[in-house]
């Protein structure tokens, strides 16, 4: 019973709860008991809110009993990456500098989930301040891949992907600054959706790189991710970068098919270090689109190789500015010091982990007087050229199909240097720099049994076309469960 509910999915759970086939409380209890039984070995949750989740579920059941419509996520048990704030529920961004912090408000995306009837089970593990590609940079504990516990779940939204793969949440929220939703989705064999920049309010998303950060869903199917994104998308007066457009009609696009759609395969993504099985799986996804009536052609994104260097100037520079707020004055950790300047510097040295310090240092270096033009301005100009590459490609094709990652999930401890780790995001960064939507979908498995992901990149605000193609690929490959549901 409990396992069946855990893998039923968002749309199906909401249907059953609204039809009174199961109560929201039964759904919440099923997930909570699975988390209690299995999460010790996986480490996907940082906080499990047993009492809060049951109270939310009871409120949904009471609304239904009273004849009210509890919303499109009625009783759907979800969880939220720890960089997204939740009122009354400890939120640390997986950092010691925010140990024990209890936010006084909900992020807009979380408030919209609650208003749609979702039940929030707890906070999910991630890399500290979303800086990482493996979840190994969490200050609190490692998170493991449900397909192979010696491997990473990806990052930075590692807990968000692993929890959904293992049936410990029906869906989750993550954030994607350079691939942090799509890369772990690919590693864990689930769907991950990074919306157009500005589609979802960043109010309450703890800032890493403000011109790149975007909240999005991870789920077991394209339809589930579409349902969640429709709920959280839309203008928010509290985020001046949120776009004044109605939420896209994504569920309506699921069955639209791809007949006549032009799909581009970017040549540069298949040169160099890509694993042969990953390349073959992406080509198989292309063949599935062709079989459904799409037209496939090669496109070129000539500045692809400069996405990584541009990203590792822009993102650290913005991070260095954003993380200046962690000074020990208003919240979080404070070091003991006799005077203020020492208190700032010691608090930050004690509270931040090595990767966060590294990025603050790179960003500070790039922004300092005399270096700005050579680094930050240059990177912003290259960013404009990367965006132009996509604009030109989208004059020829409607959607781009590419690998999400060069390889399947790597082993814990495998990436020895910071640059080795950064290279694992080489295919996901350009999407954020250009601000376009990206949907990661499973496309089968390697001979090792590990999942492989492909990503669909679309025009700005054209999530609907991305969903159409994603649904066709999903129908061809399906979504599989890890061995013993990740609970072995």
């Amino acid at each position, binding site marked *: 019973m409990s396992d069946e509910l855990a893998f039923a999915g968002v749309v199906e759970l909401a249907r059953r709860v609204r039809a009174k086939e199961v109560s929201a409380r039964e759904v919440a209890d099923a997930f909570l008991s699975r988390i209690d039984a299995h999460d010790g070995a996986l480490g996907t949750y940082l906080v499990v809110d047993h009492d809060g989740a049951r109270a939310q579920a009871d409120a949904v059941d009471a609304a239904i009993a009273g004849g009210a419509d509890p919303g499109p996520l009625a009783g759907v048990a979800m969880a939220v990456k720890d960089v997204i704030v939740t009122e009354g529920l400890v939120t640390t961004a997986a950092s010691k500098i925010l140990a024990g912090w209890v936010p*006084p*408000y909900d992020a807009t995306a979380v408030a919209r989930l609650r208003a749609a009837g979702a039940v929030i089970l707890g906070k999910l593990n991630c890399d500290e301040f979303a800086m990482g590609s493996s979840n190994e940079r969490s200050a609190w504990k490692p998170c493991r891949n449900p397909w192979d516990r010696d491997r990473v779940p990806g990052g930075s939204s590692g807990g968000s992907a692993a929890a959904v793969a293992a049936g410990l949440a029906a869906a989750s929220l993550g954030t994607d600054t350079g691939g942090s939703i799509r890369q772990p989705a690919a590693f864990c064999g689930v769907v991950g959706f990074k919306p*157009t*920049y*500005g589609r979802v309010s960043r109010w309450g998303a703890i800032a890493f790189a403000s*011109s*790149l950060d975007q909240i999005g869903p991870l789920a077991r199917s394209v339809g589930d991710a579409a349902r969640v994104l429709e709920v959280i998308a839309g203008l928010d*007066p509290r985020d*001046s*970068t949120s776009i004044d457009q109605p939420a896209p009609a994504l569920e309506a696009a699921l069955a639209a098919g791809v007949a006549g759609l032009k799909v581009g395969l970017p040549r540069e993504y298949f040169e160099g270090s890509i694993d042969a099985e990953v390349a073959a799986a992406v080509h198989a996804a292309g063949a599935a689109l062709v079989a459904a009536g799409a037209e496939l052609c090669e496109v070129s994104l000539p*500045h692809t190789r*400069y996405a990584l*260097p*541009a990203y*590792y*100037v822009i993102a650290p520079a913005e991070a*260095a500015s954003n993380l*200046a707020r962690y000074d*020990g*004055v*208003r*919240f*979080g950790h*404070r070091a003991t*010091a*006799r*005077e*203020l*300047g*020492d*208190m*700032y*510097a010691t608090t*930050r*040295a004690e509270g*931040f982990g090595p990767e966060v*310090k*590294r990025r603050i*240092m*790179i960003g*500070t*270096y790039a922004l*300092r007087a005399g270096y700005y033009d050579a*680094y930050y301005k*240059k*990177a*912003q*100009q*290259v*960013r*404009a*050229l990367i*965006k132009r590459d996509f604009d030109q490609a989208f004059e020829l094709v409607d959607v781009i199909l590419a690998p999400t990652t060069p390889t399947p999930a790597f082993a814990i401890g495998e990436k020895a*240097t*910071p*640059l080795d780790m*950064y290279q694992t995001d080489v295919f996901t960064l350009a999407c*954020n*720099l250009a*601000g376009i939507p990206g949907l990661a979908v499973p496309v089968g498995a390697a001979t090792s049994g590990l999942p492989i992901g492909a990503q669909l990149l679309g025009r700005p605000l054209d999530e609907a076309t991305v969903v159409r193609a994603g649904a066709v690929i999903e129908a061809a490959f399906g979504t599989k469960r890890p061995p013993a549901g990740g609970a072995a």
Partner: protein
Amino acid sequence: MVLTREEVAEIAQLARLALGDAELEVLRTELAAILDHVAALQEVETTGVEPMTHAVPTMLRLRPDTVAASLPVEVALADAPAAKDGCFEVPAIIKAAT
């Protein structure tokens, strides 16, 4: 490229990070490797290219100038490491003259 200990210490000072000798030494080599990698940007011809500051064109959005509720003082101070008389409390701002 080669970074000196002094340069790295200066950046740490600008970033308000009190780093020890061992940490500075590790960062000295790591930062140099990362800066070598991003130096590839210099290969790209960018003359006349307008820097892209944001993913979408952003404009300041106006809102009605109306009074709304703000965070109550006791809520804002609830997570403070130290508070006194309705204010955040911090150590001495100016070094005592000796």
